[in-house]
């Protein structure tokens, strides 16, 4: 596709349920990022994938959060046993490897509401 695609755009889930968020990066982009944006706050780094290197998971807030990416394609962010504080917009971005530039292109995000 032309841009980064995220699905679903909105998700309402009950506390304690697991959720999966999906990100389709721009074709050919080797780097993929997940960020969390709570209401009225900035972008909180979660995880970063770069090609076949080990992902940088330093931003994942707890072991309830995990993410996978197969090669340079789709990524899924999984939140287990969701809590109300997980409510946020989850943003995915991808970036090309052109002379190691790190300009990122963002998706529209998934708005997660935990009730």
């Amino acid at each position, binding site marked *: 596709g032309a841009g980064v695609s995220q699905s679903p755009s909105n998700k309402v889930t009950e506390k304690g349920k697991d959720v999966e968020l999906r990100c389709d990066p721009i074709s050919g982009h080797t780097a993929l990022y997940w960020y969390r944006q709570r209401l009225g*706050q*900035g972008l909180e*780094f979660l995880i*970063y994938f770069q090609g076949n290197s080990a992902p940088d998971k330093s931003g994942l807030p707890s072991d309830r959060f995990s993410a996978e990416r197969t090669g340079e394609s789709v990524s899924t962010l999984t939140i287990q046993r969701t809590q109300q504080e997980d409510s946020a917009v989850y943003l995915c971005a991808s970036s090309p490897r052109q002379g*190691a530039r790190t300009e990122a292109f963002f*998706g*529209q*995000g998934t708005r997660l509401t935990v009730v």
Partner: protein
Amino acid sequence: AQSVTQPDIHITVSEGASLELRCNYSYGATPYLFWYVQSPGQGLQLLLKYFSGDTLVQGIKGFEAEFKRSQSSFNLRKPSVHWSDAAEYFCAVGGRPGGTSYGKLTFGQGTILTVHP
């Protein structure tokens, strides 16, 4: 570890007035530097970027930013603000090749810009 500070959470200006949004970073060398804008209901859009060379960079929508190594700053400016510029602005730092944070993008907390008619 790299970090970004945007000291101003909220700025209000009148339409037609000049604007400067502050950004300070912490990084072991000269990082890649970016400004993004997030309009209500919209995704993040890149305004401009600095990789190397001329320290004054021009972006879209009439914005510019100046990299000042001595101050570890990358402030965003616009000579005359339009009502459509009302949005949230994020400064970001990217790690250069060879560093431990290579490829990682770290964002500031954002500055909300309100424009009065």
